C-alpha cells in the first residue's frame, strides 16, 4: 500500500489541487475554501519533499499518465532539477496559504473569496504541472492553466488599474504561450514526438535544419515573455503592483521561476547545451539581456515610490541573475541559477508578504504612507529589513549564497564584466531597499494618520517563516548547493 502510494506521488501533486479547485467551488464559502486550500498546499508540500528525497536517493522517477507508456502517453518525469523547483513552488504555496486568509478577507469581496481560492489552486496546479511534466505539449497546457488563472487573480486587485494590468498581461502572456506552441509545433514536425526525452534523442539527426532553429527561437522568446526577460518585461511591474497581496507574494515567488525552469528544461534537456550554446550564440544573447535586465530593473526600482512596484522592478533585475547563471551553460552556472531561483523565491515571497501586511493595515503602499511604520509595525518592518538585506546579498542570508555561487560561476571562465554587473546591481539593490528602510524607520508617520498596530498573527508567521528560511539557507547552504549541483549534473549530463 505504502509502495503504491509512493508510486502515485508524482501525479498526486497535480491531482490534489485539481480536485480541490472544484471542491472550493462547491463549498461556495470563503472560510472552508481557505481551509481546503491550506490542506492541499501543505499536502503537496509534503509530497514534494518525499519526491525530493526519493529522487535524491533513487534517481529520476518516471510516471506514465493513464498507464500509457512514454513516449506515447504523457509522462511525468522527476529529476534532480525539477524536484528542487517543485519543492520551492509547493513550499511557497504552503506558506502563502497560511498568509492568504487575513489578506484575502481584507482585499477580496467575501462572496467571491471561494472563486479566488479556486483560481489560486488552479494556478498552483498549473505551476506544479509545468514542473513535473515530461511532455512538451502538456507543459504548454499547464503553462496556460497557470497563466489564465493568474490573469484572473491579478484582475481581482482592489484598484481599477488591476484590470488593465491583467489585460496587458493577458495579451503578452498569450502571445508568449502561442510562441511556445509554435515552437513545440516545429519540434513535433521534425521529430514526430512530444515527449521531451524522446525529442531529445531524435533531434541530433535533424538538428541542422532551419525548422529546429526556428523552433528554438520561438520557444526561447515565448518562455522569455512568460518570465519577463528584459525587453519583454513590460507587463510585470503593473501586474505585480496591482494584484492582491497574497497573489503578488505567491506569483512573484513562483511563476517566473517556473517559466525559467521551463526554458532551462527545453534548452538543456530537449535541445542540449551543446546545440543551444555552442552551435548557436544563444548564450551570448542571454548574457547581454540578463545584464541589461539587472541594470535596468535595478535602476527603475530606485525611482519607484510605490513599494510593490519597486519590488516588481527588482524582480526583473533578479530574473537577470537567474538567466545569467544558466546562460553560462556551465555546471557551476546552472547550479547558481537553481540556487538563486530558490533564494529569490524565498526573498521575494517574504518581501511581498511584509509589504502585503503593511497594505493590510494602511490600504496603500507608497513610500510616504509607510513612513514611520518601523515603530508601529516592528515585526513586519523587521521582516522586510532582513529579507531586504538578503536581496542585497549581505552575508548570513540566502541572497549572499546566491551571489557567492553566481560570482564564482561567472569568474571561473573569466567573465569579470559580468561580475562587475552583478555587483553594481547588488549595490543598486542597497539603494532601493535602503529607501524603503529609511522610510520605515527614519521618517515620522504622515500627519493626520491614526496609529496602526501589527498585522494578524498568521500573516506574521508566514512572513517570518520565509525570512527564517532565508537565514537558515544563508548560514547552512550546503544542502541547497548540493541539490543545485545534482540538478546541474542531471540536466547537463543528459544534454551533452
Amino acid at each position, binding site marked *: 500500500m505504502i509502495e*503504491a502510494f509512493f508510486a*502515485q506521488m508524482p*501525479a*498526486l501533486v497535480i*491531482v490534489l489541487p*485539481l*480536485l480541490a*479547485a*472544484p*471542491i472550493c*467551488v*462547491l463549498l*461556495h464559502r470563503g472560510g472552508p475554501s481557505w481551509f481546503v486550500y491550506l490542506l492541499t498546499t501543505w499536502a503537496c508540500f509534503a509530497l514534494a519533499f518525499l519526491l525530493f528525497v526519493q529522487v535524491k536517493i533513487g534517481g529520476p522517477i518516471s*510516471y*506514465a*499518465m*493513464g*498507464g500509457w507508456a512514454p513516449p506515447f502517453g504523457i509522462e511525468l518525469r522527476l529529476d534532480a532539477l525539477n524536484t528542487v523547483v517543485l519543492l520551492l513552488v509547493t513550499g511557497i504555496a504552503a506558506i502563502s496559504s497560511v498568509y492568504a486568509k487575513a489578506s484575502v478577507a481584507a482585499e477580496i469581496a467575501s462572496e467571491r473569496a471561494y472563486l479566488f481560492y479556486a483560481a489560486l489552486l488552479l494556478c498552483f496546479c498549473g505551476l506544479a504541472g509545468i514542473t513535473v511534466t515530461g511532455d512538451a505539449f502538456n507543459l504548454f497546457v499547464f503553462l496556460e492553466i497557470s497563466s489564465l488563472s493568474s490573469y484572473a487573480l491579478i484582475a481581482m486587485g482592489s484598484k481599477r488599474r488591476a484590470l488593465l494590468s491583467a489585460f496587458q498581461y493577458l495579451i503578452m502572456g498569450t502571445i508568449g504561450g502561442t510562441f511556445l506552441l509554435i515552437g513545440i509545433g516545429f519540434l513535433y514536425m521534425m521529430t514526430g514526438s512530444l515527449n521531451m526525452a524522446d525529442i531529445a534523442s531524435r533531434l541530433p539527426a535533424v538538428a541542422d535544419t532551419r525548422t529546429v532553429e526556428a523552433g528554438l527561437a520561438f520557444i526561447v522568446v515565448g518562455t522569455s515573455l512568460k518570465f519577463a526577460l528584459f525587453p519583454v518585461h513590460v507587463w510585470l511591474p503593473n501586474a505585480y503592483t496591482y494584484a492582491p497581496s497574497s497573489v503578488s507574494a505567491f506569483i512573484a515567488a513562483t511563476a517566473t521561476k517556473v517559466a525559467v525552469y521551463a526554458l532551462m528544461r527545453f534548452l538543456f534537456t530537449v535541445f542540449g547545451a551543446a546545440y543551444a550554446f555552442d552551435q548557436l550564440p544563444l548564450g551570448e544573447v542571454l548574457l547581454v539581456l540578463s545584464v541589461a535586465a539587472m541594470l535596468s530593473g535595478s535602476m527603475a526600482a530606485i525611482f519607484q515610490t510605490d513599494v510593490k512596484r519597486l519590488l516588481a522592478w527588482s524582480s526583473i533585475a533578479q530574473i537577470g541573475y537567474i538567466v545569467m547563471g544558466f546562460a553560462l551553460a556551465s555546471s557551476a552556472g546552472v547550479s547558481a541559477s537553481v540556487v538563486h531561483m530558490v533564494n529569490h523565491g524565498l526573498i521575494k515571497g517574504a518581501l511581498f508578504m511584509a509589504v502585503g501586511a503593511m497594505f493590510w493595515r494602511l490600504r496603500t503602499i507608497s513610500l510616504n504612507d509607510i513612513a514611520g511604520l518601523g515603530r508601529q509595525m516592528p515585526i513586519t518592518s523587521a521582516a522586510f529589513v532582513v529579507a531586504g538585506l538578503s536581496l542585497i546579498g549581505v552575508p548570513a542570508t540566502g541572497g549572499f549564497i546566491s551571489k557567492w555561487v553566481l560570482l564564482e560561476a561567472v569568474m571561473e571562465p573569466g567573465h569579470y564584466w559580468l561580475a562587475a554587473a552583478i555587483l553594481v546591481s547588488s549595490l543598486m539593490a542597497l539603494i532601493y531597499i535602503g529607501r524603503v528602510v529609511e522610510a520605515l524607520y527614519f521618517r515620522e508617520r504622515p500627519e493626520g494618520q491614526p496609529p496602526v498596530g501589527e498585522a494578524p498573527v498568521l500573516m506574521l508567521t508566514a512572513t517570518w517563516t520565509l525570512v527564517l528560511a532565508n537565514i537558515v539557507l544563508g548560514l547552512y547552504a550546503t544542502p541547497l548547493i548540493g541539490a543545485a549541483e545534482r540538478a546541474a549534473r542531471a540536466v547537463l549530463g543528459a544534454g551533452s
Partner: protein
Amino acid sequence: MREHTVLRVVTKVLIAPIILFALYVQFHGDYSPGGGFQAGVVFAAAIILYALIFGLAEARRAVSPNLLRITGALGALIFAGTGVYAMLRGGNFLDYDYLAHDAVHGQHYGLLLVEFGVGLTVVSVITSIFYVFAGRGRRNDDEQPPGDAR
C-alpha cells in the same frame, strides 16, 4: 423576441433535438467522433438559444446559475475522481484498465465517465459565461431580454 411566433415555435421544436444530438455526441464519443467538449458546447447552445428567445430571466429560472456552478464543479470532480479511483484500484492516474474486471470494459467505463465529466463542465462553463456577459449591467431589469440589445 417572444412576440415572434415563428421564432418561438421553431425554437420550441428545435431545442429538444439539439439536446438529443448533444447527448448522442456525448455518449457515442468513445465509438465515433465526438466527446464531452463538443457535446457540451452543443448542449450549451440549446440553453443559450432558449435564453435568446425567452429572455435571460426565464433561462435563469430553468437552469439556475447556482446549479451551473455546482454541475461545473461536479464535472471536474467526476473527471479527476475517475482518475483517482483508478489510482485507488492500483493503476496510475486515469489508467482506465483498472476501472473494471477487464481492460476493455475498463477503458469504456473510464472514457464514458471522463467524457461525461468534461461535458458537464463545458455546458456549465459556457452557459455561465453567457449568463455573466448577457446579464452584465442589467441586473435590475431582468425583464428585458438580452436579444433586444443586439
